[in-house]
């Protein structure tokens, strides 16, 4: 299959070898990946809590969204880059773990993306109507709760990968 040959090709690149065999590459990239959780996961949860209506309620929802968004995009970019680097160190093992925690994590990430999309096309567009209310509409609460549940599951799946990868 083309995917398997791509993973095999990636594993054979010089870059992948450096990630795999360097003493410092993996710990440094892994530390950045984990500590950026404070920026990305932390801000995502705070935003979700505003959507649920239990945190930062004195601020307008639109203002909270606008202020968090650039940091969330930046944080997500760091997570994706460092995550891709970690993956590229041992792509074949990552892709074929049993249980398939890597695949589960990727699917959950897609679902989290869909949740953001649905929010932005739906209740997020009408934010002007509920902007200043401390109690948020059910659709916004639902988006916040779904988001928190998904990110907790994504963290769980990510942690689980480390337990099913073959030792280096």
């Amino acid at each position, binding site marked *: 299959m083309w995917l398997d040959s791509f993973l095999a090709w990636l594993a054979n690149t010089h870059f992948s070898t450096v990630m795999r065999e360097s003493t410092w590459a993996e710990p440094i990239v892994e530390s950045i990946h984990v500590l950026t959780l*404070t920026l990305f996961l932390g801000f995502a949860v*705070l935003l979700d809590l505003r959507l649920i209506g239990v945190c930062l309620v004195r601020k307008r929802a639109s203002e909270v969204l606008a202020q968090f968004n650039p940091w969330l995009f930046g944080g997500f970019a760091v997570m994706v880059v460092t995550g891709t680097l970690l993956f590229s160190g041992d792509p074949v093992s990552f892709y074929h773990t049993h249980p398939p925690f890597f695949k589960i994590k990727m699917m959950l990430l897609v679902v989290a993306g869909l949740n953001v999309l649905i929010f932005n096309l739906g209740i997020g567009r009408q934010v002007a109507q509920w902007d200043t209310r401390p109690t948020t509409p059910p659709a916004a609460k639902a988006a916040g709760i779904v988001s928190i549940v998904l990110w907790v599951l994504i963290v769980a799946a990510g*942690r689980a990968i480390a337990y099913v990868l073959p030792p280096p």
Partner: protein
Amino acid sequence: MWLKALLLSFCRWCNSSFFGHGIRDSVWLFPFVEIFHLIGLGVLGGTLLVLNLRLLGLGFRGESASDLEKDVRPWMVGSLALMLGSGFLLFSTEAVKMYGNWAFRWKMIFLASAIVYTFTLYRKVVRSEEGRIATLWRVVVAILSVLLWTGVGLGGRAIAYVTTSASSISISAR
């Protein structure tokens, strides 16, 4: 020294306690507790970053730092409690090993400093009225907060990479 002996006997007690034992003997309990530790890391770090970015003038300028602090305080304190609780459980599974782990010692020193700092000087500056404390001091206070908590985080990551020879300490607990 009596303090060292006390710490070591505390570590031994943790190792052999029902939770230390239970988590160590279970295949999935350790990663399960780790997930809570990571969620706590995200939320605690997130709330602190909001306040620090505000102090640095890099974001969240619609509200004063003291109002922001009121908003995020329950989540900050709650996630700190979650981190301490889950962290203690993780520690208890290999407490005697941690006693000899230099990364763990560094983490605890940074942690104690960060907690004391956050609930004394830091809190005072965050809660002070805008303009009463010079911008320069607010920036210094924010940077120190980031440095201390980053030290805790890096120490935590380093624990996993530091292998200690348990043979240097006689383990009678197990």
